[in-house]
Every structure is written in C-alpha cells, then in structure tokens.
C-alpha cells in the first residue's frame, strides 16, 4: 500500500470515528465538543505511558479509552441534561483548560510536544498495518454499535429528545440518564481516537487538538447528514480527500469552500446529504433485491 494512501485511510478513519463521537450525543441535540479535549488528554497520557514507563501500546490504548470514558462520565453527571449551548461552552472550555495544562507540563513535552513515539511491532510497516487494522476494526465495531443504537429504543428515545425535549420527558424518557450514556460513549471513543491519532504521526503536539478539529468534525456531520451514521461515512473521506486533489490556487480557499458548503447544506438540505429517508430507500431496495435473489 502506498504511504500516501495509508495516511489518507488512517486519518479518514480517525475523522469518521471522531465524527461519530460527535454524532452520538447530537442525536439528542448535544454538540459535545469536549471530545477534542478527550483526544488530547488520552493521547498525551498514552504517549507518556509508552515513552516514559514502557507500558505496552495495547495497554496504553486501553487506558486511553478508559480515561476518556471516566472523564466523559464525570462531566456528564453535570451536563447530561443541560441545554445545548451549555454543553457547547463546556466543551470549548475543556479544550482551553486541557491545552493550558498540557503546555505547562514539561514531562509530556510542554509547548514543544512529544517526539519519537515508537513503532508498534518494531518496524514501520508492521506499525502501519497494526494502526490501520485497529482503526478500521474500530470503525466496524463502533459502526455496528451505533447502527444497533439507532435501531433500538434508546435511539428512538434520543430522536424524541431531539425533536421535543418536553414531549420526551412526558413519554417517560429519562433525559439525564440518556445524556450520561451517550456522552460517556462519545468521550470513550474520543479517548481511544486521541491515542491512535498520535501514533499515526508518532508524535503529539498541542496544535493537533484545536478548534480546527471541531470545525472538521462539525462539517462532516452536518454536510454528510446528522440524522444517520452513514452521512459521516460518506462525508469524511470526501471532505478530506477532495481538497488534496485541488490545484494550489483553489486549495488555498479550502476553508472558505468548507464554510460555504456548510451554509449551503444547512439552508438547502438541513439534514445533510444522507438523510433517514435516503437510508430507508436504500435499505428497502436492498431488501427487495435480496428477496428477488432468494426467490430465483
């Protein structure tokens, strides 16, 4: 596999996972940006464990997931059922605080960053194979979990909260518990992504975890479609890959193009390109095709 393709695939996988980490709480209308802070905290922790304490990568990754989950759970105790804008502010605030704490910690490199994370498996090719394997394994696993979530009572409850919070409460939905669950899941996923993100580059720098990432994941969700998980799967590779092919004159306006695309989609197709309806149509088509095959 070419090197460029490896980086493209691995970063796309991270973008898909991070967008799903935002998608899950957004099912109940929470823009949960704390996930970027989770990435940084878990990533740097895992990096420190591997470099300074020679902890095996697999254990460091597990700790990254766990740490993300613990932080997400603790914060969600307060904002599980908070208004949307409060959740947004909490997320942004955590990003700021995390950055400040990390830049004042020489043990993790401070403002310089953390260099020279080791290759997993001892060689660059094994490292790439392992990282890609873990990332796409996670994509399949998380995708499965989210698919199940979307098609079960929890998913329907989240949809009810999204549409009308008061009605959801009157239907007996415990918004706080649901919020805690979704936010904890989201932060757990983000924690693991943070570890993997750093090991893709084999380094950590504070500028890997900025509001720019928030912008990317938000664009992926809203352009791809926020009402189903499939929108992210479509939008992530395209929004990352197409600008790489732009000629330099157009590439320099990339952010303006992203912003304009976001506005156009919000105004013209507010649910994004892939909506629930389109997913149902595809599912129906596949189901009919399968029946025809079985009959023949």
């Amino acid at each position, binding site marked *: 596999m070419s*090197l460029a393709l490896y980086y493209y695939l691995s970063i796309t996988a991270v973008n898909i996972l991070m967008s799903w980490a935002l998608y899950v709480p957004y099912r109940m209308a929470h823009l949960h940006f704390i996930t970027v802070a989770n990435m940084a905290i878990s990533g740097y922790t895992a990096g420190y464990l591997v470099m300074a304490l020679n902890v095996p990568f697999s254990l460091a990754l597990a700790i990254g997931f766990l740490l993300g989950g613990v932080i997400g759970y603790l914060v969600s105790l307060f904002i599980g059922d908070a208004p949307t804008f409060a959740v947004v502010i909490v997320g942004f605030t955590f990003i700021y605080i995390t950055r400040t704490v990390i830049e004042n910690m020489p043990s993790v490199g401070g403002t*310089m960053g953390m*260099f020279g994370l080791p290759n997993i498996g001892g060689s660059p090719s094994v490292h790439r194979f392992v990282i890609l394997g873990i990332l796409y394994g996670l994509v399949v696993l998380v995708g499965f979990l989210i698919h199940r979530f979307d098609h079960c009572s929890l998913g329907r409850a989240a949809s009810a909260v999204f549409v009308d919070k008061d009605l959801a409460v009157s239907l007996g939905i415990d918004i706080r518990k649901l919020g805690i669950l979704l936010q904890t899941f989201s932060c757990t996923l983000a924690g693991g992504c943070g570890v993997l993100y750093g090991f893709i580059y084999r380094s950590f*720098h*504070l500028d890997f975890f900025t509001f720019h990432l928030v912008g990317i994941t938000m664009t992926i969700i809203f352009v791809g479609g926020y009402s189903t998980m499939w929108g992210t799967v479509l939008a992530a590779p395209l929004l990352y890959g197409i600008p*790489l092919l732009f000629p330099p004159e157009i590439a*320099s306006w*990339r952010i303006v193009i992203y912003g304009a695309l976001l506005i156009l989609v919000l105004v013209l197709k507010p649910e994004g390109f892939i909506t629930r309806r389109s997913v149902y149509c595809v599912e129906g088509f596949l189901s009919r095709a399968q029946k025809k095959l079985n009959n023949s």
Partner: protein
Amino acid sequence: MKKAKFVVVAAMALVFLTTGFGFAQTQAQVKEWRVPFLNCLTGAIASIGEYLQWGAERAALEINQAGGIKGKPVKVIGVDTALDPQKGSVEMARIVEEGTLVAMGPVPEPVIMAAMPIAVENGMASVTATTSYEYAVKFFPWTVSWFPPTEQRLGELVAAWAGLHPDMKSVIQFVEPYGPWPGMAEAHVKGLTSVGVKVMPKVDVPSDAVTFGPLVVKALEQKPDGIVFVCNAEKIAKIIRELKSRGWTKMDRLLVFSSGDAPELYATGGADINGVEIYNYINPNLDTPRWNAFKEAYMKAHNGNQPPSLSTNYYDALYMIKRSIESTAVTGDPKKFKEERKMIAEYMANMKDFHGIMFNWDMKNGVPTNKPTFIFSIQEGKKKLVKEVKP
C-alpha cells in the same frame, strides 16, 4: 617514437574515456530538478509562508538564469500544508513516494512533527530552515538545523545586548508558550545572569490575549530596567504600545527576539517601536550585489516593504541543495533514489564554507558552527545595525 606516440594516444584515450564515463555517471538524468517545499501557503500564517516561498522561488530563478543544476533547471513546487498536520502528513507521504530526491520544509512545528517522521523513515532529507535546533535535531540526519543549539547561541547574544547597556541591572521577559519559545527565554536567562543582570520572574503571555494592560502592569510593578520579548510579533507591538502609554521611555532597553522580527511587528507597531532593539541572523544593511538584487526584487514585489529576516532562509536552502547535488554523484536516476537521497543528506550535514546570501558558514553534523547574529535598532520600520555578535 611510434611506440611513445601510441602510449600517449592510449593514455589520452584512457583519460578521455574515464572522464567521459565518470561524467556520464554524474550527468543529470532528469529533465528538471523538482524540489517540493511543504509550506503554509494558507491559514493563519499564510503571510509568512508567502515570503518563504518567494525566497525559494527567487533562488530558483537565479539558479536557472545561471544555467541550472548540472545543466538542468530547478523548480520549487509549493505544497500547501495549510498549518494542518493531517494535510502535511499526506503531502509528505505523497512526495516521498513520487520519488523526490530532497524537499524543503515543512513549516511550522506541528506540521514538522507530523510529517518529518515520514521523511526520516524513508531516508529522504527535507530542509527545515525555519525551526529551532531542538526540533531539527530530532530528525537528524534527514534534516539540517539552521541554527546552533538555542542555549549556546542566545546566551551569548543577550549577554552582548546587556553589555551595550551597562546600567541595566534587571530585566523581565514577556514569554508566550509556543513551541521552542519558552526554551529560548530560558537561554536568555542564562545569558543575562552570566553577566550579572538580575532576571525577574517572567510574565506569561496567553496565546489568546487581546489586551495587555494587566500583563504590562504586572511587569512594571517589578521595576525592570530592561525588557525582552519572546512572543508573537503582533503581541510584541501591542505590549510596547501599552508600555509607552504607561510612561516607558527607554526604548533601547526593549529587546525583541528573532521570531518577533516579522512584518506583523512593523505593521502593528508603526512609529511606536522606534528605538526598540531586535536581534536576528540577517543584516539587511549589507551591501553586496547579490543581497542588493534580492532586496530590490523583494521590495518591488511587496509594495516597497523590506525583506523580513526569514525570507532568505529557503533561498539559502535551495542553494544548499544545489551545491549538494553538484558536489556529489547525484543524477536523479530513479533507480538510485535511496543512495542519492543519502548522499545529499550526508553532504549537507557537513558542508564547508557554504556561501549564503548574507555570509558564509560551515555545517558540522547538521549544525551550523559559525553563523553570526546581529543586534539592530528599529528606526522608521528599518533596522540599523548596533552590534554584530560572532560565535
């Protein structure tokens, strides 16, 4: 007699054949030398990326006008990383796989950290000419450092500055937490304390600071005789304006560090920074045909603005690459990329007497050994040389 003639002719033929064969071996196998430059052409520091690119392209123009490298033209290909590690890593992977012999950049540090491991892993040199030694050394021998180790270099420099103002007994620093800047501030402390100047607790400048009154009051409360600035150029200008509005008059007791010598300082500071001192690695008052031509071309292309200090870095980097190719058996033959990449990296790391646009210097194991630094006084947007500090 006949035998002697035969021997002479045979010897000449042998010499001719050997030379020709040798020449054929080092003759360029490429139609043009393509040197990708991973640069931030868009994003928050696009203005810096623009003049870095300009410097590199200026060098390419001069080289091509003089006949190219081994008779073939050189082309600098700007590769925009948009200050984004995600983009930087894919672009570096792409250029490594395209069979690039040598590259320039990346700029700045977050992209270096994401992309340089790829170059290192694949044995390709990429000249990072705008970062500190502490970043570059992590990727040796596949890059060279443009600067000596921070502590060694800056200590001497600020000590020399303190020497210019013997009545200055205490200094305070404004330090922004970004990349190598805190390390540079530490080096300043060592240099100043070595000459008996008391360095007070620094004033940290938050990256998102909009007003600077609280920080200036905090600094002035300690009654310093001098101030050193280790933060973003625009912030430096604003802090200086705030200092002036609070009665600071000793402008020559204000020292701006090298990374602060950027167009933002002059654009924001205007007349308020007259008299402020600044240190850097290039002397814009040099009077040589090469520098004068560079300066004139820059000013013509940039509405009369003086070339910023970093504008020559990638200009020199491309000349360094040119010399590396010309002085080794590099041909650009795709079958020999691995060896030729190594040849270039090894040659650059220990190049002797490189003729930079400002001065000549030697490289030893990837580190420059004898680059001078300069202290200037800013007057009406121009720098007036106060002192040259030789290592």
